[in-house]
C-alpha cells in the first residue's frame, strides 16, 4: 500500500529565512510525487510534481523539491519565505500500481513571523 508521512505538523519560520518541509513516502514501484499548498479557506493548488528525470524539481512561487529514492523522500524547500507562504502544505504519492490514485500526507502548517 502507498502512504505518505509528513513528520512536521507545524513549522514557524521568520520572513526571509529558508524553509524545508519533509515528506517520506512508501510505494512499491516508481512513485509519482506531488506537493500541494492550501491557503486558508481555499482549495489545494499544485506547487510541483515529479514523475521522472531530474530529481530536483522546480515549482511555482520559488519552491523546489528533491526526490531521493534511497531515502524515500521528497522534501520541499524555499530559500527565502514570504509572509504569503503561510499555508498548509501537503505531499502526495501516486502511480501506476494503484490506478494513479493519490495518497496524501497529513499536512504541515507553516506560520511566517515578521
Amino acid at each position, binding site marked *: 500500500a502507498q502512504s*505518505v508521512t509528513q513528520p512536521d*505538523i507545524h513549522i514557524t519560520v521568520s520572513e526571509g529565512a529558508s524553509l524545508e518541509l519533509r515528506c517520506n513516502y512508501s510505494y512499491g514501484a516508481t512513485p*509519482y510525487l506531488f506537493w*500541494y499548498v492550501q491557503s486558508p*479557506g*481555499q*482549495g*489545494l*493548488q*499544485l506547487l510541483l*510534481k515529479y*514523475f521522472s528525470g531530474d530529481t530536483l524539481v522546480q515549482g511555482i512561487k520559488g519552491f523546489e523539491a528533491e526526490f531521493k529514492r534511497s531515502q524515500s523522500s521528497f522534501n520541499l524547500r524555499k530559500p527565502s519565505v514570504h509572509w504569503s507562504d503561510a499555508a498548509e502544505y*501537503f505531499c*502526495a504519492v*501516486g*502511480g*501506476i500500481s494503484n*490506478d*494513479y*490514485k*493519490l495518497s*496524501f*500526507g*497529513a*499536512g504541515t502548517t507553516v506560520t511566517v513571523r515578521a
Partner: protein
Amino acid sequence: NAGVTQTPKFRVLKTGQSMTLLCAQDMNHEYMYWYRQDPGMGLRLIHYSVGEGTTAKGEVPDGYNVSRLKKQNFLLGLESAAPSQTSVYFCASSLLAGAQETQYFGPGTRLLVL
C-alpha cells in the same frame, strides 16, 4: 473559465438528514474525485469517476453515494448524515488518468453534522 466549483460552501445538517454536494468543472476533464479532509489526516479519497456515467470507490466510501450523469458534474450524496461525516469536502478533476496529470481542486464544502 471558473475551473472547479462546489455548491454549497457551508452546510449544517442534523443526524439522519440527507443532502447532495455538487461539483462542477468547465475544463472538459474526464476524471473527477471527491475527497474529505479531516484534521491530522490529510485528504482521503471517497469516490472517483473516470468518465461520464462511471463511478468507483475510493479509500473511505461508506455512507456516501455518487453520480456522474454529465461529464461536467459530479454529485456526492449523503443519504443519512452522521456526526462522523462532519468534515471539509473537496472535489477535484483531472484531464486524464495518470499520476502525472495535475488534479485541480475546488474551494471546498464545509459540512457540520449535529
